[in-house]
């Protein structure tokens, strides 16, 4: 039980990864799974959070930020990622710039049967778009964000990080 608690995905670990990789902006629509992360991000003086109205906006805003010399991350849910298909195509993939997206993996579970179609189509969608991705399940996986940044910068392409667990709140433990 103690080991399981230690492995829980903490928002502090993700924010530390953002800082390590020089992230300046988070373009986001909060969801229930990422609320604790949102609260922590807003408290960071070095990080500017841009709340958007629809997920398709996030990739275009991120492109503008990148062109302007900043380092954004798009933080959205898998449902919103699928809504953003044309924006991901035109503003992320076709742009030829590195872009990291953190995607809440709603409905995913390693155990049992996945019944939520949002989860069932998430990886299929990423495969169709030719976007590589990494999965975060526990706190030990947080360093995969750095791997995603390295890959995005080397290939000048978008790379996704799927968050397969709710964040366990820094102020809610």
């Amino acid at each position, binding site marked *: 039980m103690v080991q399981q608690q230690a492995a829980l995905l903490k928002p502090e670990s993700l924010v530390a990864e953002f800082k390590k990789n020089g992230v300046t902006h988070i373009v986001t629509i909060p969801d229930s799974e990422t609320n604790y992360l949102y609260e922590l991000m807003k408290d960071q003086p070095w990080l500017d959070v841009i709340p*958007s109205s629809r997920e398709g*906006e996030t990739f275009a805003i991120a492109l503008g*930020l990148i062109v*302007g010399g900043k380092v954004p991350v798009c933080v959205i849910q898998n449902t919103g990622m699928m809504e953003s298909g044309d924006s991901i195509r035109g503003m992320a993939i076709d742009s030829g710039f590195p872009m990291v997206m953190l995607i809440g993996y709603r409905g995913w579970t390693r155990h049992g049967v996945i019944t939520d179609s949002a989860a069932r189509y998430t990886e299929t969608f990423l495969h169709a778009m030719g976007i590589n991705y990494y999965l975060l399940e526990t706190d030990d996986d947080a360093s995969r964000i750095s791997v995603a940044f390295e890959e995005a910068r080397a290939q000048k392409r978008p790379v996704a990080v799927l968050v397969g667990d709710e964040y366990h709140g820094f102020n809610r433990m």
Partner: protein
Amino acid sequence: MFDSEDMFRAFKPHRGKAIVLVTGTSGRDWRDISDNESRDLSLQGAMGQTNSAALGFALAQPNEKVVLFDSEGSLQMNMGILGTIAGKKPKNFFHFLMDNECYATTGGQPVPNASEINYAGMAREAGYAATFQFDNLEEFQNNIETIMKAEGPVFVAMKMIPKIENEPIGRRVRKPQRSRAETIKVMQAELGITVA
């Protein structure tokens, strides 16, 4: 309604060193009028999202005036951006809307509620710092200096004469234009921006 070429000619003396982005059929007229190509930026590439990309750039470069000439067809696809822009309050962002009430490039079909929708009203209620609307060139000319001195985000709705394209796409003659990648590269060199 007034002509987009005339509008751009009236705007040009007040541009200063602003970064200018355009969308839509009417936006093409800017290419022949601009005399500072290194500060003309294309961030088109996804339906209705040029305004979002322009916002991102304005937030990244707060000391540069960023002027977007958006189209109403594009804005209708991404109306939530009005709230996003108003929420971030970019003082350097000038959002002009060229409203020709139709999808000119697909044959002139009307956009939803084409003649009755009030874009300036929507921007004002969303929270833009200043909004204007014009349906004739003279009033636009009389106000453009004030507009460009205002603190953003500023929204300017303009009724434009539609330039409808009815030729099949394969038969249309297009003027050569710089690619998005080229405009980005030139603009970044001009401003000394490197991608992190």
